[in-house]
Each structure stands twice: as C-alpha cells, then as structure tokens.
C-alpha cells in the first residue's frame, strides 16, 4: 500500500472561493486548485518565504512543498492562458484551530478562548446561522492530486 498523503496545515479555510484572473474568464469549467496549493502560492510568492520556511509552516517536507507549489503554478498558468476561472476546493488540509462561517454574511471567524459561538461578530446573526467549518483533514469528497 502506498504511503498516505500527509495532512497539510493552512492558516485559513478557503473552500469554494472562485478567483477570476482575467476579466473575460469563462465561467464554464474552472481550474480546480486545492487549498494547500493556494496556501503555497501565498507563502512563497506573496509573503516571499523560502521553500524550507514555507514547508515547516505547512508541516510537510521541503521537496513536497516544492511539488505542491509547482502544481499550483501550472494551474495558475492554465487559468491565465486559457482564460478560465480558478476554484479553490478540496485537498488534505487542516487549520489547527476551529473556524466558523456565518451563513447570512459570509464571514469566516475563529474564537480564541471560547468553544461555541454566541453570534456573528459582523452581522450579529444568531448561533443557528453559524456553522463549523469541517476540520477533519480531508475536506473534499474527490481527490484532486
């Protein structure tokens, strides 16, 4: 049996975000990018980290981080050249702490020092409008590797 994929640590859940790189991006078939691939672009390109530093943050080895990043870059190029949207979804990730999403305003928030949310910090929606974002290390029902 092959070695199972290691869980990647990410800072924020970003499931189901849609990114338009070009204005005339076709809404049809989006390029599917996993959350860990998106995180690798943030750490390496936006925060200008070394691959080794980024890999320590994500809890994988340096070569694995480089492979994740390479895949992410290829998907970016695909979306850019073919004018397609990017959909961030899936991947074997965990966030390290619990994150909640408010259904009525779409904000995502954490709760340091507390377990159960009372209300949304932005729109003060009640607790039943707030859902816990799954953090079980496998956010996707389909594997995109």
């Amino acid at each position, binding site marked *: 049996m092959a070695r199972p994929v290691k869980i990647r640590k990410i800072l924020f859940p970003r499931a189901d975000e849609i990114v338009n790189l070009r204005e005339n991006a076709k809404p049809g078939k989006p390029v599917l990018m996993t959350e860990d691939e998106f995180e690798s672009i943030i*750490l390496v390109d936006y925060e200008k980290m070394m691959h080794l530093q980024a890999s320590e943050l994500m809890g994988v080895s340096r070569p694995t981080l480089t492979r994740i990043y390479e895949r992410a870059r290829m998907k970016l190029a695909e979306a850019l050249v073919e004018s397609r949207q990017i959909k961030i979804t899936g991947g074997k990730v965990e966030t390290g702490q619990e994150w909640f999403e408010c259904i009525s*305003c779409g*904000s995502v928030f954490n709760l340091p020092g507390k377990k159960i949310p009372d209300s949304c*910090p932005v*729109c003060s929606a009640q607790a039943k409008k707030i859902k816990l974002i799954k953090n079980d290390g496998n956010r996707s029902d389909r594997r995109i590797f």
Partner: protein
Amino acid sequence: MTAIGVTGEYFEAPLSECFGKSEYFFVYDRASGKYRFLQNPRIDEKEKSGKNAASFLVKSGVTTVMSYNVGSNAKKVFDRGKVQIVVLSDNFKTLKDVLKKMKLNLKS
C-alpha cells in the same frame, strides 16, 4: 475593540487586501461607542509590516480584527494575544458596507 484594515481615512474607503499592509486601521470601541482612525506606523517597511502592525494593535487593546486576509506572521501575534480574526467575504467592498452590517450609525 474592533479593528478593520482600510486604505483611507474616510468611511467610503475600500478595505485593504492584506491586514498588515493597510494604510489605516479603523478602531471602534463597542462599549463606549467611540471610533478613530489609526495610521499604520510601519507601513513603509518592506518586511515584517504585518507583524509590527499586529503587535501595535494588540498593545492598543484590540480584541477583534477584520480583513480579507491576514499574513502568517501577523496571525501568530494575534493568536498569542488571543485576538479574534474575522475573514470578511468579498461581498464587503468598503468600510461603510461592514459598518452597515454591524448596524453602526457613525457620523464622520
């Protein structure tokens, strides 16, 4: 207290893309109803602007921060200071939109 990263010192100002790189912070105190705009003290520095901004806000007593994105260094500081992080959705474009959802009627 709540801090929101904005690009200008007015209510119609667009929200800044990354918390540490915002020019100004809108700081609102729910208990007293007072608000003010704080300038990001280390915005010109190329590195560690997020970390410095975060420790500056934690020292000022902020308990909730709102932005589209928070960098890894800033997040570490906020986690240590037990500051709540709110990642806003793209539906919010300007500071006014957020204040409207928070049901705050502030006059400039």
